[in-house]
C-alpha cells in the first residue's frame, strides 16, 4: 500500500504535569507535517494534516502566486448567498472557494500523491504568526475537496522510539 510518512513535528517543549502518584509526566505537543507543491511556482510548502478543517486552506501569501485561469478557477458564491467567515484557532478570516487546475502534490522522501482539481479555500490574509520573517504560512490539508479523500490517516506510536508516528496510506 503506498504511503507518505508524516513528520511528527514538536516545535514546543513537552508540557510537564504530575499524576495522582506525583510522578512527572511529559506530554508532547505534536503536529503532523507533510510537504506540498501547489500551482503557481515550483517551491514546496509545509502543510499540516487537519481533519478538523472542513476544507484545504491556502493562505494569501501562497495563493497570491497562483495564476487565475491556468492555476485555478474561482467558484463564486451564488448570488445573494450570505458569505460565511472561516474560523480556526485564534483567527477569523474571509475566503472564497476555488478549484485548482494544476495538481496538488503531497510527498515524502519516497512517494508522491498527486491530486487533480482539488477544491480549496483561498483565504484573505494569513494566520497569526510568531515569525519575524516572512516565512510562508502552512497550508492546512482539510477534510473535503479532493486532497485527502480515499486515504487513511494512520497514527501510531513508534515501538522503537516511543514517538508518535503518522502516515497517509491509499
Amino acid at each position, binding site marked *: 500500500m503506498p504511503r507518505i510518512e508524516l513528520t511528527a513535528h*514538536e516545535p514546543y517543549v513537552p508540557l510537564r504535569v504530575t499524576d495522582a502518584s506525583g510522578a512527572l509526566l511529559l506530554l508532547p505537543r505534536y503536529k503532523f*507535517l507533510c510537504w506540498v507543491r501547489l500551482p503557481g511556482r515550483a*517551491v514546496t510548502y509545509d502543510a499540516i494534516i487537519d481533519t478538523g478543517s472542513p476544507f484545504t486552506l491556502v493562505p494569501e501569501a501562497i495563493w*497570491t502566486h497562483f495564476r487565475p485561469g491556468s492555476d485555478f478557477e474561482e467558484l*463564486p458564491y451564488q448570488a445573494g448567498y450570505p458569505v460565511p467567515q472561516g474560523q480556526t484557532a485564534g483567527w477569523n478570516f474571509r475566503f472564497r472557494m476555488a478549484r485548482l487546475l494544476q495538481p496538488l502534490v503531497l*510527498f515524502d522522501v519516497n512517494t508522491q500523491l498527486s491530486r487533480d482539481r482539488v477544491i480549496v479555500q483561498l483565504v484573505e490574509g494569513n494566520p497569526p504568526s*510568531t*515569525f519575524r*520573517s516572512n*516565512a510562508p504560512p502552512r497550508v492546512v490539508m482539510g477534510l473535503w475537496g479532493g486532497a485527502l479523500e480515499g486515504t487513511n490517516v494512520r497514527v501510531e506510536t513508534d515501538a522503537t522510539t516511543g514517538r508518535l508516528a503518522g502516515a497517509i496510506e491509499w
Partner: protein
Amino acid sequence: MSTNAVSIAPANSAREDRLRELMALYPEPDWRAYAADRAWLAEQQNARALDAHVGRVVAAYEQRVVAVGDDYTDLLIELSERFGVHPGRIVVVGIE
C-alpha cells in the same frame, strides 16, 4: 467574482522578479532531495538544535544548515545563486 472577493495582487517587486528569473534558469528541483533535506531539518527542530533561531528563517541544503535570516525570499535568492540550483531545491522554513 463575488463582492467578497480577495484581490489578487501579483508580486511585482524586484526580488520577486529575480526569484522568477532563477526559477526559469534552473530545472525544477528533485523532490526526493528536497524531502530528504526537509525531513533532516525537522529532525533538527525536534532535537531543539534550532531554538536559537525562533522567529527567523533557517535554510538547509544537502543536510546542513546553510543560512539563517529574516527574509524568506532573500534567502531563496541568495542560496539559489550560491549553489546554482533552482530556488525550490533550497529548504527555507520559519522556526517557531
